[in-house]
């Protein structure tokens, strides 16, 4: 089954004084169960707008979306989802423990199961010592951790995370990657937005790049990584024993090596130079900016 099925989603914000923001245009995208999908885009690209449409927080101007085959925004669709808002805020007069219990109850979890999962989640996210303190007194990263805990506690099949790593320290970021990989192992679908290409490379099966409200590219991450060889770095040791590095493009490789060998130099090292996701992303953003201006 498709975990997410987004068809022709568009959103126009109408502000006061006839201000109109065309935030999202005709985005179509499907994500199967068990896939980790990275939703990449610069600030203001429309990532959060897409996600808010999925959660029924805002109504799309065009198009529709389904989550696990159920129309997005309905109570039934939300049962399948763990959602982490961007810069989340939770009832700050409750403690982390109380908030997680509240979330578990809205999902009608059994009390014993709820208690066990709550303990697991609090320990996993290192909130155990702070669990009885009101969220009001938490640091930004701790609130983000509460957000992750409340996503995990009811063990949904779809995870929609809006910038899950924002506000976290390096250890926290590594933890989130681990959590996502673990979810993937358990066959869950994770859909998360980010602007950090490195996170996508490490954990995602596929990536979608959103630019000015349009989906510019959807591709498997491993395809991008193998196709992305743009050239080679070749180290030559010449007859004097000196090493020199050369940058050679992909199609010049064979000729270059043959020429070096013919002139009696030794090829010490041939290393492919990859165009990574970051380069691709930057190139797309650049082109996008160029064409729109």
């Amino acid at each position, binding site marked *: 089954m498709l975990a997410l099925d987004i068809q022709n989603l568009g959103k126009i914000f109408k502000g006061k004084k006839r201000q109109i923001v065309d935030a999202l245009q005709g985005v179509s995208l499907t994500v199967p169960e068990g896939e980790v999908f990275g939703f990449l885009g610069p600030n203001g690209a429309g990532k959060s707008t897409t996600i*808010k449409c999925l959660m029924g*927080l805002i109504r799309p101007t065009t198009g529709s979306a389904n989550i696990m085959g159920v129309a997005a925004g309905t109570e039934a669709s939300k049962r399948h989802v763990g959602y982490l*808002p961007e810069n989340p805020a939770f009832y700050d007069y409750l403690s982390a423990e109380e908030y997680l219990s509240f979330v578990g109850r809205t999902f009608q979890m059994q009390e014993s199961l709820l208690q066990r999962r709550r303990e697991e989640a609090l320990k996993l996210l290192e909130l155990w010592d702070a669990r009885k303190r009101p969220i009001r007194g938490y640091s930004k990263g701790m609130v983000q951790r509460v957000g992750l805990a409340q996503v995990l506690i009811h063990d949904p099949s779809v995870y929609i995370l809006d910038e899950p790593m924002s506000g976290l320290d390096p250890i926290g970021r590594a933890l989130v990657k681990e959590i996502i990989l673990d979810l993937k192992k358990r066959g869950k679908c994770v859909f998360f937005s980010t602007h950090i290409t490195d996170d996508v490379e490490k954990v995602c099966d596929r990536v979608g790049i959103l630019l000015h409200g349009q989906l510019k590219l959807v591709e498997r991450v491993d395809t991008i990584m193998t196709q992305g060889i743009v050239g080679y770095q070749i180290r030559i040791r010449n007859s004097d024993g000196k090493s020199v590095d050369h940058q050679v493009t992909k199609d010049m490789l064979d000729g270059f090596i043959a020429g070096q060998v013919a002139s009696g130099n030794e090829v010490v090292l041939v290393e492919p130079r990859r165009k990574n996701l970051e380069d691709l992303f930057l190139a797309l953003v650049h082109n996008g900016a160029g064409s729109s201006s």
Partner: protein
Amino acid sequence: MITIIQITLKGIFRDRVFQGIMALAVLFLFIPSAASLSMRQVTELSITLSLSLISFILLLLAVFLGSTSLWKDMERRYTFSVLSLPVSRTSYLLGRFFGLALFLLMTSALLGTVAGLVIKVASGIYPPGRPIVWSYLLLAVIFATLKYILLVAAAMLLSTVSTSFFLPVFGTICTFLASGITQQVYEFVHSPASANTISPFLKTVATGVYYILPNLSGFDLKVNAIYSIPPSGYGLGLTLFYFISYTAMLLGGAALLFARREMK
């Protein structure tokens, strides 16, 4: 919805504003001494002051809690985290409302008990002209509470359309003030004396406003409690019916508007 009611109550009890408003209840302690200054009708005055103080505290609670509970959730972006849980917007709204209503009931039960003690003490020292009928007093407190619960529903309706808390807060206060005088205004514009002085247009407007604004005069049983006058059962039934249908209408409107509202 039960879970929303629970966290609503928890939220109120842990709120500073609530604690401040409840501190007003300390004023009860001064009622017997204040009333005794009048020398005459001490018990009657104690009843008047007690009921007024209860009304005032409930009014403050209704206005501030009713108008800020939704607004605060939207302003502090709690709605993103709560409305993405499997809770429909209507049950969220109703959970909020019933939480507040329950809280007002609990408050008035508490304040009513305190008032009862105060009046008991006052009547023990200065026996009143007419014996106190405690059930009338109870009815007065109950109907006052219903009145403010209705006001909470009005405040919530206003906060579903507003992006700031000014409209709900001042709108609710205006509704309250206006609803206290609509009866008089209505009677005045429809009296023969006003026929020459008031244009037919104004008369229509006043009549329209009269039917739209809640009519809260029926909820006031203070006089019955103070002078031990039996209230009319028919009147009470009618007021109760009015309370239920008017509140249901307000909440229905609020639910419709809230379901359409965008959480940006």
